[in-house]
């Protein structure tokens, strides 16, 4: 009975994190972008500095009519937002927050689980792009697929570099093996992983698939109401997952002063710093063109990740 209760508690905790953190990041994005551009951002909803803006947005989305275009493939059109969102919820289960088993569930092949399930989320965008019966949506879907294929590889390669360093692919195992000098050792891999992750999430400057000045909103053009909100939520949940994963793999997760009692705080702080960087990049850089995007992946990121794997291997052999 105690075991069942334990499992349920962990799942509920993951669900709460899944529902709260993306909203926090969304609100932070509103505010940070506003201040970087000399504005105030939302100030009225909820009273104190517009903290309830996204709650109000959610209520607004829920009231809107759920439109399915006449020419669309109904079932796939309606299923797509769920396929886009659910994988991120599943991924959160496997990410360790603190030492001594502060993790949803320990998965033996955790690293593979996380990357595999994250890749499934893109199917949602593809389904949406195809099923909308809209040429802009289809173009968005195509760009999504092309982008995923280019950036999945460097992500996998750099993640496997960390797995080589740690000698395990279980996420808590990687954190247990972590030493501070891993950060300079794996820094190239970390940068490549983070960049590729941004591209996989279609965040600026890699937001070609949803480029509003060219193809309206890519695969999500025809969506309204709650289903559109689900896609937006998937994007922010994706930021949470990417940042926490980068934290765990490359920044030492819960390692820090007083890690025994404050480990979860370190994870959260590092994740928050990375999420801030994601927002910062959105405000700072112009969008990459499709060919620049592919060129960056194939001629810069993939060679860099191979170099990182080589470096990891050499250091590993020298040390043993």
């Amino acid at each position, binding site marked *: 009975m105690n075991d069942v209760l334990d499992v349920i508690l962990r799942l509920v905790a993951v669900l709460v994190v899944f529902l709260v953190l993306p909203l926090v990041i969304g609100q932070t994005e509103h505010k940070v972008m506003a201040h970087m551009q000399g504005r105030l951002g939302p100030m009225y909803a909820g009273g104190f500095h517009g903290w309830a803006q996204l709650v109000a947005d959610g209520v607004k989305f829920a009231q809107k009519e759920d439109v399915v275009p006449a*020419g*669309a*493939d109904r079932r*796939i059109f309606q299923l797509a937002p769920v396929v886009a969102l659910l994988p991120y919820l599943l991924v959160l289960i496997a990410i360790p927050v603190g030492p001594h088993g502060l993790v949803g569930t320990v*998965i*033996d*092949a955790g690293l*593979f*689980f996380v*990357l*595999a*399930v994250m*890749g*499934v989320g*893109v*199917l949602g965008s*593809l*389904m949406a*792009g*195809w*099923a909308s*019966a809209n040429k802009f949506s*289809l173009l968005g*879907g*195509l760009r999504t*697929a*092309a982008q*995923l*294929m280019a950036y*999945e590889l460097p992500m*996998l390669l750099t993640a496997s570099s960390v797995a080589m360093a740690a000698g*395990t*692919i*279980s996420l808590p195992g990687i954190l247990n093996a972590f030493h501070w000098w891993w950060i300079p050792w794996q820094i190239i891999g970390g940068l490549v992983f983070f960049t590729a992750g941004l591209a996989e999430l279609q965040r600026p400057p890699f937001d070609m698939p949803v480029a509003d000045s060219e193809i309206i909103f890519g695969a999500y053009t025809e969506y309204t109401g709650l289903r559109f909100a689900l896609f937006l939520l998937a994007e922010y949940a994706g930021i949470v997952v990417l940042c926490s994963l980068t934290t765990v793999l490359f920044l030492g997760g819960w390692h820090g002063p007083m890690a025994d009692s404050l480990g979860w705080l370190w994870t959260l702080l590092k994740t928050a710093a990375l999420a801030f960087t994601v927002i910062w990049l959105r405000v700072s850089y112009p969008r990459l063109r499709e060919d620049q995007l592919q060129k960056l992946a194939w001629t810069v990121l993939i060679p860099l990740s191979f170099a990182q794997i080589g470096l990891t291997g050499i250091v590993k052999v020298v040390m043993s």
Partner: protein
Amino acid sequence: MSLAAGPPGFLSPAGVEIAFLLVGIATLAAALVTVTTKQLVHAALWLVVTLGGLAIEYLLLTAEFIAWVQVLIYVGSVVVLLLFGLMLTKAPIGRSPDADSGNRWAALTVAIAAAATLVWVVVDAFRSTWIDLSGAVQGSTKVTGASLFRNWVLPFEALSVLLLAALVGAIVLARPPVTRHRPSKDALRATPPRHGARS
């Protein structure tokens, strides 16, 4: 395979075995829909269900690592590539009247023959092997890696060479034909005039 005759017997199946069978039936049904549906993109999406079902079967056989690799490679990459190809070429919403092939009976024969061979090999190889669920995990990453790189290195490397050959072959096929000498007047004359301005 877990239903082969052995000490635990058929007639009192454990919960895991029932789940294995049910998932297997669902996977088979999804696979059948994949090849029979007339809507091309639906076929690709049913393929996702089929491959996901296979991953669950691997999980039930305690082969966790294989299951996630299956999802990563097949669902995450191969199907995305497939959908990309479909969207680039021809993927109408609704039925494709030309989705039927005249080769369907030949394809069916080959498929049944291949399936029979595989089932026979697997049943013959694992006739009375049972996975001890209460013991140590037998399909963990460590065990899989050790057996792959200790006992099965040669097949592994042979497969790598095979895949590499397939890759090179695909690139060769996809390249535009290379002319031996620079395009001469012969080559230019060989192409039919587009607008028929002069013969």
